[in-house]
């Protein structure tokens, strides 16, 4: 479980996060949504320890990040997996090399053990024929799968995803969403996803945090988001005509 308590973050003179408090449950897919510039990426980078908040605390299963020594922070980071928006695969390594990288860096496994583990996670993300290909030789959807495989290869406790289905076609996006949800439940990990995709929100958003101008504007589940009367949320979620019609139908059905 990740608990965030009143975090603030500024860059030069702009105050990006203005006191966000929330918590993310274990075994659930937690989504952060909000308009561009609302502070989602900064918030996620604070959770990852890439940015240090000026005020407030973030604790991972009771361990407050800022209270940890450098060694403990390093150990904690090895319990985190991250899927970046652009996949962030290492260009100079093959798919297999990318997946094996954390194992080579942080474990004392033999070559055959590493190979078995890499084969297992690549199979888990339904990628069996791309072991020796380079990131530039595979599609965006496959790159995302490799990024997920690399993120879970060390059995992380926390999985973070920044726009995991941006740039993907709707079908592949659903596949990636479902894969993340399955992995979250299967390994009982705390997953936090930063997204703009309303399909993801509706499909896998067990907990949704809505950020606006660096503040928490709303939080709830994908079921509650249909019912909310919070105008800030409805303006954002139902900005497309399709979703407006869906909501209208839902309200009519309810009445």
């Amino acid at each position, binding site marked *: 479980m990740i608990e965030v308590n009143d975090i603030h973050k500024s860059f030069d003179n702009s105050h990006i996060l203005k006191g966000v408090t929330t918590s993310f449950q274990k075994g659930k897919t937690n989504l952060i949504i909000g308009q561009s510039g609302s502070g989602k990426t900064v918030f996620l980078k604070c959770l*990852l*320890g*890439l940015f240090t908040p000026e005020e407030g605390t973030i604790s991972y299963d009771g361990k407050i990040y800022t209270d940890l020594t450098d060694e403990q*922070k*390093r*150990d904690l*980071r*090895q319990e*985190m997996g*991250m899927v*970046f*928006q*652009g996949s*962030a*695969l*290492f*260009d100079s390594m093959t798919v297999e090399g990318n997946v094996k*990288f*954390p194992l*080579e*860096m*942080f474990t004392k496994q033999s070559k055959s053990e590493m190979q078995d583990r890499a084969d297992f996670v690549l199979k888990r993300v339904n990628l069996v024929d791309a072991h020796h290909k380079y990131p530039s030789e595979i599609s965006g959807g496959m790159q995302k799968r490799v990024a997920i495989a690399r993120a879970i290869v060390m059995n992380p406790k926390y999985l*973070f995803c920044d726009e995991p289905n941006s740039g993907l076609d709707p079908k592949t996006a659903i596949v990636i969403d479902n894969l993340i949800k399955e992995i979250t439940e299967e390994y009982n990990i705390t997953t936090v996803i930063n997204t703009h995709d309303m399909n993801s929100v509706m499909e896998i958003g067990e907990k949704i945090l809505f950020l606006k101008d660096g503040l928490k504007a709303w939080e709830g589940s994908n079921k509650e988001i249909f019912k909310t009367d919070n105008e800030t949320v409805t303006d954002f979620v139902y900005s497309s005509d399709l979703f407006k019609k869906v909501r209208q139908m839902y309200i009519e059905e309810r009445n």
Partner: protein
Amino acid sequence: MLFLLGYTYFHPMNYLASIGRYAIMIKEVFKKPTKWRIMKSLILKEVDELIFGSLGILIFIAFFMGAVVAIQTALNITSELIPKNLVGFATRQSIILEFAPTFCSIIMAGKVGSYITSSIGTMRVTEQIDALEVMGVNALNYLVFPKIVALCLYPFIISIAMYVGIFGGWMAAVFGGFSTSADFIAGVQLDFIPFHVAYAFLKTLVFAFVLATVPSYHGFYMTGGALEVGKASTTSFVWTSVVIIVANYILTQLLLGQ
């Protein structure tokens, strides 16, 4: 001078902050080392890329550099009182003391420096450095340390450049009819001071450190997108050259000055 470097106004604090950040970067490079098994392969990869990959261009440049120095010296000897072996002597001194270590390092600032800045900068833009940091890898040690170690072999290619430069001078002098082979070789052997070679190698080692770290700094701390990677490469070349030239002056004063 700053105007010539493309800066229209001077921010002393920015430069001080950059120097401070560079010093912190160097400290971080030597902290928390990457596993030796991985580091070994990274070093070998960098040796291949930075050292062997630069050998061809440096040999080519050194050959013609030596040839031009020999011709220029020969053409400027107008008095009969000046001994003919001066062509070989001047070629050796110019090549060993300045042209091979300093001129080649400026060329390397363009070739190797741009490569280092653009490769690290692209990793920054595509979040590969963030990925390393999230995993708990010391990204500076992983990326910069192998380059520093690989460039410790830089004096090796400079020694080849010295040899080829003098050979180029001999070819130009003898086949161009500016000097006899015997005169040229006598000049090369005249008043040889071994410390000059040591001085050149010492300079080269300092330049190697500059070549590995200044471009890495510009790549690692760059912000923005693809356009900024190009800008960072250009800035990196300018500053690497400036640091090499200033370091050359300081080292020459310290090692050869009275």
